Structure formats: C-alpha cells, structure tokens
C-alpha cells in the first residue's frame, strides 16, 4: 500500500486543449445540444424578438419598413394604453391567484384525502376544460345578463330594483367571477400531477413535530409545490392579458376595457397601413410583464432542491379528514357547476335555439342538421382531433426534454431553456399567428413549409410548449437526481435512463401537459387561419366563423360535437391505456411469480 500524498503536488500545468467535459463521447452530446439550441432559438425566440423590433418600424409587414419612433410614442403616451394595461393586470392577477387557490385545493382533495367521488374529479375537470371560452362566456351571459334571468329577478326583489335592472350582468365582480370559473380546471390539472407525487413522509414529519393537519398543508405541502405554483401563476397571469371573449362580454358593457381588444383595435385603426408598430408597442408591455413574472419566480424558487420523489418511500396514502370531506365534496360540486355545468347546459340549450341564448323564439334541431350534413364538418372534426393529439404530444415531449435537460445541466442551458419555454407567452394571443408567420417567412428552411400542415404543427408546438412546460416541469423538479444516477451506474445510458426511469415517473405530469396543450391547440383560433391552408379547417375556427356570421345556434352545435368527439376519443384513450397498464402489471407480476415458484422454497447453494 502506498502512502498518502498529504499536500498538493507542485506546479501542475493544465494541458493546452479542451477540458475533459468537452471531449470523447460527451462531445457528440454537446454538438447535438448546440444544434437543438439553435433550432429552438429560431422557432421560439425569434418571433417575440421580431415583435419587439416591429414596435419601431412602419411598413406593409410587421417588422419591416422605415424605422420610426412615432407610433411607439403615440401608443406609449396615450392614456388609454395604461388604463387597459392596468385593467388587464389587475384582472389577470386576481383571477390567477383565485383560480390557483381553488385548483390547488381541489387537487389536494383529489389526491390526499378520502373524499367520496374523488376519483371522478380529474376526468370531470378534464371534460370541463374542453368547453370553449366563447360558449362558456355566452352560457354565463345568458344566465346573468338578461333582466328576466332568475338571478336578476331575485336581486330585483331583494334590493327593490326596477324590472329592467340586471345588476350582475357586467362589472368587475361578475367579470372576475366568470373568468375564475373558467381557469379553475386548468389550475387543477396543472397541480394534480405534482400533488400526487409528493413524499408523504415530509408531511408526516411536520405532523409529528406538532403541526395540525391544516398547518402541515400550509407549511410543508404548499412550499414544496412552490415551483409548480409560481410557474402556473406566472403563466395564468400572462395568458390573462390575452383574455378576449370574456372581458368583451362582461367588462365592455360596464366600460372595462382590456389589453387584447386594444391590441386588435390598434392594428385595425387605420385603413392605410396596419399599425403593427402600435400593436407591437403594446406587446412590449406584455414582454416586460412576462420578464418580471419569470424573474420573480426564479428568485423565489431559486436553487433550492425540491426533489420530493427520492425513492425513499413515497407512496402518499390518502388520509381521511372525517366530516370535513363532505364540505370538500360540496366545494367540488359548486366548482363544477360554476366552471362547467351551468355554461354547458346553456350551450346545449343554445344549440337547439334559432339564436343561441334566445329561448323565446322556440327550439329546433335544424342547427344539428346543418352541421351534420355540412360538407366539411367531419373533416374538420377529425383534423382538429388529430392535430390536437399530435401537436399536444409533441409540445409535451418538447416540454419534457426541455425541463429535464435544464434541471440536469449547467447555467447556460438552463437559461436558454427558460427563455425558450416562456418566450412565446410574451406575444399577445391575437398577434401570435401574425408574429410566427412574419418571423418564419424569411427563413430558408421554414419558408417552404408555410401553407403546409407541417408549419401548422410547428406553430402549435411553439404556442403550446409554454403551457405544457408548466405542467411538466413540476414533475421533473420533483425527481431526485439520484434516481437517474443509480440507473446510470446500473448500466443504463442517458437515453435508456430517460425512458426507463424519468419518463415513467413524470408520466402524470406529462399526460396532464399533453391534454392541456391538446385542448389549447384544439381551441386555438389565431394560428390555423394564418399558417394553414383553407382546406385544413379546424372545427374551432369553423365554429367561430359560424358565430360571427350570426349562425350562433349552429356554432353551439358544432362546438358541442367537438366536445363530444374529444370526450369520446379521450375516454377511449383513457380506457385503453388503463387496460394496457393493467395487462402490463399482470404480466410483470406473473413473471415474477413464475420465477419464484420455479425456485420453489429452495435455499440456493
């Protein structure tokens, strides 16, 4: 045995070449990474950058033409700009916080308690998500706006108002109420993944230290969910800025104007040249907001480790909360009424009315006849489902790869991943199609794809990845690095580790991301119009067009068919996957049992 060298050797000179991390089999990985980064930057970062530039140019196309400060200054100095910005920020923030509170609470109820019917919560929330915001809004509009509506009649009686008064038809209270109901299912679906993979032992530790069940929730569970929650909060706030339909219906009549309508109006205000510069200036405000929110999130999440799946004993057993669980169930039922049942019932009624929302003219099946015999209805439905499934999957896959790589890599990659996953959010919803199209046009490889289905899928991936990332990254953060390290030591390459260890463990979050992204894609109106060909109609665009032509009943009917199709296909997929999982489990168990029985009770030599 040789003795130790107790002190450092003198004069070690570093060899004059690349350090070890850059060589050998790791070099190939680095090159691939570099290429991927380049592609991501072009697809994700370039459109918002272009949009920022466009604020200072005036021309036929966004981002082209002469450099000028005038439209920028005009927009900045207009007081309306700041009024709508303030309105939207307040609305978005309040809605995001309330929606997240309800959503997280219900996720906790579904996963960690023994509330009756909790197994139905996720499917019900998923179905609720499919209700398009246009009809969600209309459903509540019909319920709250007409003076003859029961709500208003009751209020007239209580407060002694006139028969034409409709106090809850619009205003801040109504607007917030309606929008919160719309976002609770999304918040729920974002949070149910991380919640279901938390180490209950940490909760128990808190309880043993004297915390009550309630305070353990607030002092242990919630802080551990912080990365997910803050990410979702940031996302919901920024999407809130793009809220369009609901503020129109419930804010406009009370004089509440919001950011997204202002953006649209700004572009259209002149018949000469579209005012891209003005609209982009407004978009700059959104960019600043996104930067601020993401920076805040990074600061609060920081470098702390949030791994709660450490392979140390993690099965979170649901606990009983006694009589409280009936209260939980009541809350859930109320939320379902709020987010889904009431608007859905109105939508169903509307699909049988001549003018959706107007019962006084009578009922008809004519809308369904028109829609079902429509030339391209079936094609639009299948196309929508297909592209939503594929686009959602790819977006979730990109999100997973992005989050996982970021969590396991150095600072540079982490920053790039973060930028990529947030950049598309900085483009106002009404401008997304325009921004992407204008950005991709001059790029050689992408140019030829414009007008083909590939470009549409690419566009959807770009738009849906931020959403999917928020769903997926929580699951990835909870995964301890040691689980991957032990797989590597056991002989698994990076790729094998990813598929055998990482993917199965983040599966709930991945599925949530896939679903949410898919629904977002199915309902997206801005991209198909610009990026695809006219023959590639999505059902959502068709239905929306129908609505704008005044064929509101048919619009409702088509949307309902789309929801039905999603429910059927989604339900089938759910059942099939459950069956497959059960089958796999059975084969696994039987294989083990067979092996053991062959050994018998022999104590081997």
């Amino acid at each position: 045995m040789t003795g130790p060298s107790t002190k450092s050797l003198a004069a070690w000179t570093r060899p004059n070449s690349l350090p070890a991390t850059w060589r050998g089999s790791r070099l190939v990985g680095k090159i691939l990474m570099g290429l991927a980064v380049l592609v991501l930057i072009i697809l994700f970062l370039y459109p918002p950058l272009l949009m920022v530039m466009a604020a200072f140019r005036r021309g036929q196309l966004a981002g082209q033409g002469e450099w000028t400060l005038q439209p920028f200054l005009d927009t900045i100095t207009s007081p309306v700009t700041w009024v709508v910005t303030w309105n939207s920020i307040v609305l978005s923030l309040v809605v995001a916080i309330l929606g997240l509170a309800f959503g997280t609470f219900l996720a906790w109820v579904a996963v960690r308690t023994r509330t009756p019917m909790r197994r139905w919560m996720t499917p019900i929330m998923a179905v609720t998500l499919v209700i398009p915001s246009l009809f969600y809004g209309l459903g509540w509009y019909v319920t709250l706006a007409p003076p003859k509506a029961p709500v208003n009649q009751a209020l007239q009686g209580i407060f002694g108002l006139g028969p034409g008064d409709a106090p809850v038809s619009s205003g801040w209270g109504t607007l917030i109420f309606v929008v919160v109901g719309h976002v609770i299912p999304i918040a729920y679906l974002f949070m149910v993944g991380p919640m279901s993979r938390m180490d209950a032992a940490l909760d128990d530790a808190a309880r043993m230290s004297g915390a009550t069940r309630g305070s353990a929730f607030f002092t242990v569970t919630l802080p551990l969910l912080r990365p997910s929650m803050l990410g979702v909060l940031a996302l919901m706030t920024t999407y809130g800025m793009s809220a369009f339909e609901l503020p129109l219906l419930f804010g406009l009549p009370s004089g509440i104007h919001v950011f997204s309508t202002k953006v649209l109006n700004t572009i259209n205000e002149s018949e000469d040249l579209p005012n891209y510069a003005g609209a982009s200036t407004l978009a700059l405000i959104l960019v600043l907001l996104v930067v601020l929110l993401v920076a805040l999130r990074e600061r609060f999440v920081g470098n702390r480790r949030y791994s709660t799946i450490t392979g140390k004993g993690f099965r979170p057993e649901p606990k009983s909360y006694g009589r409280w669980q009936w209260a939980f169930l009541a809350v859930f039922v109320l939320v379902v009424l709020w987010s889904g049942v009431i608007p859905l019932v109105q939508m169903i009624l509307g699909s049988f009315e001549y003018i959706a929302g107007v019962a006084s003219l009578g009922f008809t099946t004519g809308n369904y006849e028109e829609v079902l015999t429509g030339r391209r209805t079936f094609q639009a439905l299948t196309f929508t489902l297909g592209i939503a499934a594929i686009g959602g999957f790819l977006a979730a896959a990109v999100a997973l790869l992005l989050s996982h790589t970021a969590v396991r890599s150095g600072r540079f990659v982490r920053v790039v991943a973060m930028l990529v996953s947030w950049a598309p959010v900085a483009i106002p919803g009404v401008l997304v199609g325009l921004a992407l199209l204008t950005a991709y046009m001059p790029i050689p490889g992408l140019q030829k794809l414009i007008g083909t289905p590939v470009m549409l899928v690419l566009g959807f991936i770009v738009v849906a990845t931020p959403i999917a990332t928020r769903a997926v990254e929580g699951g990835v953060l909870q995964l301890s690095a040691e689980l991957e390290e032990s797989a590597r030591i056991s002989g698994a390459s990076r790729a094998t580790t990813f598929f055998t260890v990482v993917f199965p463990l983040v599966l709930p979050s991945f599925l949530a991301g896939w679903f949410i992204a898919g629904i977002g894609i199915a309902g997206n109106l801005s991209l198909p119009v610009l990026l695809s060909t006219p023959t590639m109609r999505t059902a959502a665009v068709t239905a929306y067009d129908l609505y704008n032509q005044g064929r509101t009943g048919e619009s409702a009917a088509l949307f309902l068919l789309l929801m039905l199709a999603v429910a059927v296909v989604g339900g089938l997929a759910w059942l099939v996957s459950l069956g497959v999982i059960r089958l796999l489990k059975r084969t696994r168990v039987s294989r083990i049992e067979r092996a053991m029985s062959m050994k018998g009770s022999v104590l081997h030599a």
Partner: protein
Amino acid sequence: MRNSQRWLATAALAIPLVLVTAGCASGAPEGDGGAAPGGSPYGGEVDSPEVEAALDALYQEALAAGEDQVVVYGPPPPQDYLDAFMDRFPGIEIIYEQLQSQDRVTRLEAEKASGNYAGDVAQDGRTPIVNMGLDGWCAAVDPIVDVPSDLIGIDGTVFYGQATVFGVLINTDLISEEEAPKTWDELIDPKWKGKEVMVSPAAGGAGAFASAMLLTPQENADTWGMRIVEGLQANVDTVAKDAQTVSSVVEGTYPIGVLAYYPYYFQTIKDVPNAPVQFIMLEEGNTWSKGAQCIIENAPHPLAAELWLNWTFTVEGQNMLAETGTYPMMPGIPGPTGLPPADEAGLITLLSDEDSITGYADYVKQVQALYGG
C-alpha cells in the same frame, strides 16, 4: 383563353347543345348545367344568352384544367348564396377563409415567399381591397358580364358588386314602426335612453367605422357629426358583438337596436318568420359598407376564380345576393326583401375610394376613444 382551348371549349359546348336541343321539351332546367331551347346553356336563368355561353365555356375550361375549388379570403356570405353557385357549377367548391385585412396581406406575402399559393380571390370592405389593388396584389380581369365602370376600380382589378347596410332593429312587441325613431336626431332623443342597444365601437368591429361615417366628409359632419356620436353614446347600452344586438332585441331586453347589421336580421327571420323583429332604414344617413372583390395574382385556380367573379355580377348572382340579405349593386336589381333599391335607400355619402384609405382613421380613433377603447 388560348386558341386550342377555345376550340376545345366550343366543341365541348356544341355537342351537348346539339344533343339537348334535339330532344328536350321547353321549360327551365333544374339548376344543372343543361341546355334548353333558345340555345342558352342555362335557359336564361343566369343572365343573357351570350353571357351564359361564355360562362359555360369558362366553366368547362376550368374543369378541364382540374380546378375544383376557389379559395376566397374574406368574411363568408350566407351558405345559401354559395350553394347557389355550387349548384349551378357543380364540381367547383367555394371555400371562404375568414382573414382580417392585416392578416390577409401577411398571408399573401407568406404565400409569395414560400411559393405555396393558396388564395384565389380577396373579398372584404372596399378599402382593404383597394389597398391590395394599389399594391399590385390584384390581377386585371376583363369581365364577361357587362359591369358598369363605376363598379370597377384600380385599373380593372377591383370590383364592387355588393354592399351591406346597417339600420335600426325594433322589437315589434314592444314598439311599433310608427313610434320608432327614424332619423339620427330621433335616436339621440333622451326619451330613448336605456332603451337602445348598440355594438360598442371599442369592441373592434364595424361599429367604429360606421360611427366614423357620420363625421366625414364635411357634409356629413355638418348634418350629423360629433353631436350625434356623443348623443348616441349617452343613450345606448353597449354590447360586445353584433350578434348580441340582434339577440337582445329579439328577446325583448331592448326595444331598439342601433347599427344593426342587416344580414343577421335576415338570418333570424329566415329561420323564424314570425319573430317579433323588424328592420327599419333611416330616412337618410344610413351607414353602409361597400364590398369589393379582386382576383389575386398567381391564384392557383384562376379560371374558376374568374367564373366565380363573373357569376357574382350576373342577374342570378345579384338576385341571390338580395335573397340572402346583401345589397346588390348592379343597376336594376331590387334590394333585399322589403328594402328599397340601393339608389333609393338614403345611404350616407362615403369618401371616395382613394380618400377612404386614410380618411376615416382619425375619426375611428376619436370614436373609439369616446367609448374608452
């Protein structure tokens, strides 16, 4: 058409002509491309015999070239209108793609850049199409139908075949036609406060432009001007969408709807003939929107597009416009059911084609600002 194609077309035409002439009884054919006595392919249903013959030739040519669709970038008209064309010329599908005007130009630029041309025809309000024409996006067309020169613009590239009007919608259960306001001044009478509903100009739609029409040119500003616009704002309750104007009047929430969009009203009474609504035009100063079309350069289906464009100016096409709730612009064609012809409808004076490009912008902004947008 090239010479060889012309011969082919004539031959194609001659054979069925001969066959059908030989055996058919007289009487109008059932909306199918068949000949009737008199030699005219559609039996005079579409337009004059010469026009019908030329259209049929164009139709055959389009079919022979494999053109099976026309893609129109613009707000879709009622399906019945499209169905009429498609019944008349089977095998050619009309597909409308709803694009905002700024998106349309971007889209066309993208098509040019990628070489994947998709759009054949652009249709919208006057100004966006005029802009396109001035920027060279539109192809010059020599129409088969005898279109008067005041309905053609920008060096033969832009065509004005139709218009839509805005008017007053009343709920006949709540108010009679006699009681209803019929001038702008009557509309701003405070006695109607709270009883009028209007789509908000701040909602990003036609409402702002319609209101801006009251402010320019000078004669409009003198007769009506900001006085009316501000008076309206004081009187009306706003809604977010045009469709809601109609639905809230139909339901009876409001007796009067201002700046009601005629096609929506038309749609309603088509479905429910005894709905308690009626559309009234003001005595004068009715706001309206002149519609325009052009065929896009490098259209992938140029023949079919030309067929479509021409058909919209035929007697059949123009009458179908009226039957589906749009104002036809060709002289001598009556307006949509119950409404006076275009030249007798008290339509407000519009700025000229060129002036309208920039002339309304400031007023639009003014109106939007008034409503907080």
